């Protein structure tokens, strides 16, 4: 089974070596691909110097466009499962086996690593959790999926769903939208308990103004997605 780990990286010069070396040394059974989203720091120079497997976007597309590049690459190269992990070392690859298990067994098409099931490890700030819970509510409303860690970037998708994501994926803040998109198109989404760490170096891309934009954009996007996919879903059920 061919498995690809997609690592979107934007200005991750302090973390990327540690993250990728860990994968190469301890998890050689998985292939990996770093997607450098036109970083302004020396991320690309590091990738090149270390001879890592990477692609480098010539323009900054944001997390959605970067991850989608990875999905396109996975689809083109015939990967059976595509996994996404953050480039800042928050996600422990030791959990990948557990994460992909439902997909390998054919019980799910998409799995999301959630830190809120066993409530172990880094639980993030109160405000962030509030936002995550609000989006959790909207997702349940839109498609009935019970995802606990809705913004988690630690996730895996089956071959078929990866091909779907390669064609269509949200531009910015794509994580919650991808859940609803997958579910509305008839894919099974499953939560898997994982532990997350606090980022060790660099800075997170979340700030106050962006949070406000996030909390407005994401619910609206989810509702629009729900409105737009209703017909498709009915057709599928009718078959």
């Amino acid at each position, binding site marked *: 089974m061919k498995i690809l780990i997609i690592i979107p990286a934007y200005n991750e010069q302090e973390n990327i070596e540690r993250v990728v070396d860990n994968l190469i040394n301890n998890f050689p059974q998985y292939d990996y691909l770093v*997607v450098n989203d036109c970083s302004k720091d020396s991320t690309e120079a590091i990738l090149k110097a270390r001879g890592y497997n990477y*692609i*480098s976007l*010539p323009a900054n597309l944001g997390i959605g466009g970067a991850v989608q*590049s990875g999905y*396109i690459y996975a689809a083109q190269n015939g990967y059976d499962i595509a996994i996404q992990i953050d480039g800042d070392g928050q996600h422990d690859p030791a959990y990948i086996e557990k994460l992909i298990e439902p997909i390998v067994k054919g019980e799910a098409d998409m799995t999301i690593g959630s830190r809120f099931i066993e409530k172990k490890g880094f639980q993030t700030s109160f405000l962030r959790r509030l936002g995550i819970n609000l989006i959790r509510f909207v997702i349940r409303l839109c498609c009935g999926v019970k995802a606990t860690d809705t913004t988690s970037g630690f996730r895996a998708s089956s071959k078929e769903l990866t091909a779907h994501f390669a064609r269509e994926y949200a531009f910015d803040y794509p994580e919650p939208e991808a859940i609803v998109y997958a579910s509305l198109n008839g894919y099974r989404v499953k939560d898997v308990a994982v532990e997350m760490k606090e980022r060790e170096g660099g800075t997170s891309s979340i700030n106050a103004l962006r949070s406000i934009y996030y909390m407005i954009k994401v619910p609206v996007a989810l509702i629009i997605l729900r409105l737009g996919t209703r017909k498709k879903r009915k057709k599928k059920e009718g078959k």
Partner: protein
Amino acid sequence: MPLPLALHIFLIVCVSIFFLVLLRYLVKRKLNLKYSLIWLLASIVMLVGVIFPQIIVWLCSLVGIQTPANAAFFVAIIFLFVLVMMLTAIVSHMNLRVYRNTQTQAILEKRVRELEDKLAELDSKDGK
């Protein structure tokens, strides 16, 4: 109330200049006809309306607008709304294509890079 002659001529000149500039841009291919068709249409409507203001007055009486100027503002605002919507749609579509291009280019760049590395390896072997 008839339009004062000086104002009438002034308006005709304004609209004519706009029309000619538009035409010149189109001829010089600085504007894509696909996206400027709406401008061409608007300028022709303006030209007709300014040369024969009776048409506007007649149209106003038909729908019950008392001041023809209000009708002109109303039509202009609707026109701008439609135009801005169109532009947003065009930008969204272009955005999608830029994304696709960027992603495809990045993946191709990786393949070229790897081929070049292999070629360099082969060359160095031949050199020995």
